[in-house]
């Protein structure tokens, strides 16, 4: 998986499972833990991050030949921070209740390591097409991780999925899942599960 210049399709597929930003690289864990109490918040967060990631990757890839090595991080941070501010304003203008619920975690996308890592690894080295497909793949991977965590926490914690009741009415809501410890437990066990599956696959193929 360590080819010099992967193609767009490879980048896209890697982002989803083999190099999943949350479960495999353990990057950007802060939003994954904080906004995974319900599906709606998780999806909004994914869209916001995807917007920033795609825009930043595109811009960086367009200007990759002009970057000076020692100033590249400044350029990355400037680009990311600007897009995050735009997303913050868009959210506050068109989805105010969600913007209140996500609170400080929207501006915190600036320091989401996934974005700066993708700019560094992919966008500053490869063409625009590859960079965009990489961004979409990574966003899908990020969204997959967030939604799977949110599913566990919402189903166990409030007995609903995306607002629909799916557990029987006698289900005593497992409140701990909605509280900080639940986030850590679900995340820990999901990482374990993903690692276990990949090791099973490896054993089979060898």
């Amino acid at each position, binding site marked *: 998986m360590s080819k010099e210049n992967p193609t767009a399709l490879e980048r896209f597929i890697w982002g989803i499972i083999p190099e999943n930003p949350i479960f495999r690289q353990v990057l950007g864990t802060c939003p994954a833990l904080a906004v995974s109490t319900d599906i709606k918040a998780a999806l909004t967060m994914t869209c916001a991050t995807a917007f920033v990631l795609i825009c930043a990757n595109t811009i960086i890839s367009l200007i990759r030949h002009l970057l000076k090595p020692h100033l590249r991080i400044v350029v990355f941070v400037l680009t990311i921070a*600007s897009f995050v501010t*735009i997303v913050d*304003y868009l959210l*506050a*203008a068109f989805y*105010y209740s969600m913007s*209140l619920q996500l609170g400080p975690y929207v501006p915190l996308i600036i320091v989401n390591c996934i974005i700066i890592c993708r700019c560094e690894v992919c966008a500053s080295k490869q063409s625009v097409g590859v960079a965009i497909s990489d961004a979409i793949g990574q966003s899908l991977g990020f969204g997959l991780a967030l939604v799977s965590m949110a599913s566990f926490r919402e189903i166990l914690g409030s007995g609903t999925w995306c607002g629909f009741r799916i557990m029987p009415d006698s289900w005593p*809501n497992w*409140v701990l899942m909605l509280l900080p410890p639940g986030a850590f437990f679900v995340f820990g066990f999901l990482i374990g599960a993903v690692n276990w599956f990949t090791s099973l696959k490896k054993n089979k193929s060898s």
Partner: protein
Amino acid sequence: MKKEHPLFLCIKNSYLGQSWLVILLSIFFGFTLSGVQAFLQEKIDTNKSNQSMRIVPTLVPGAVTGKSVTVGDLTVYEALNQNNKRAGWVIPARGQGFADKIEILIGLTPDASSLSGLSVLNQKETPGLGSRITESSWLSQFIGKGTTDSLTPTKNPVPSKNEIRAITGATISSFSICQIVNENVKKFRAELRKQQADP
């Protein structure tokens, strides 16, 4: 190797030659952001005030709209009835709850002598226990309480005049709400009295 003109080298190695991309990008993003702000700021401001304004009529009986006013150094809402007369006050307040900050709106009668309503804007209390402070059946017991004495939570099934029935399993959340109400109403009454004495 091609020999470069010394002036070209001089420019290339100067601060400007090194950082022109950063400066150009800053200008570009500066314009983008100011455009975004120009388009959206107004909408965000209306969203912000709507969030509280929408609740104002439910907190003060007879009120139709609210308007933001300053009393002393507090920013509160004045609830207005159909004839644009004062129907009461709504004070935004916040304080530490059990787990995190709680934000509430307190409705008061025109002379601020008793509570006319209470609404929780924002809370992160324990779901199922502390989060029951948002239930209207619990909040409704604040209506009509006098503001001269401070409110205290109690476990008695039949609370007396200045007592609030605490939620089982969420004594501290109930206590916090009482505390926030007491503190902010006291502050507001003092400011109001000061303003009335010295208009």
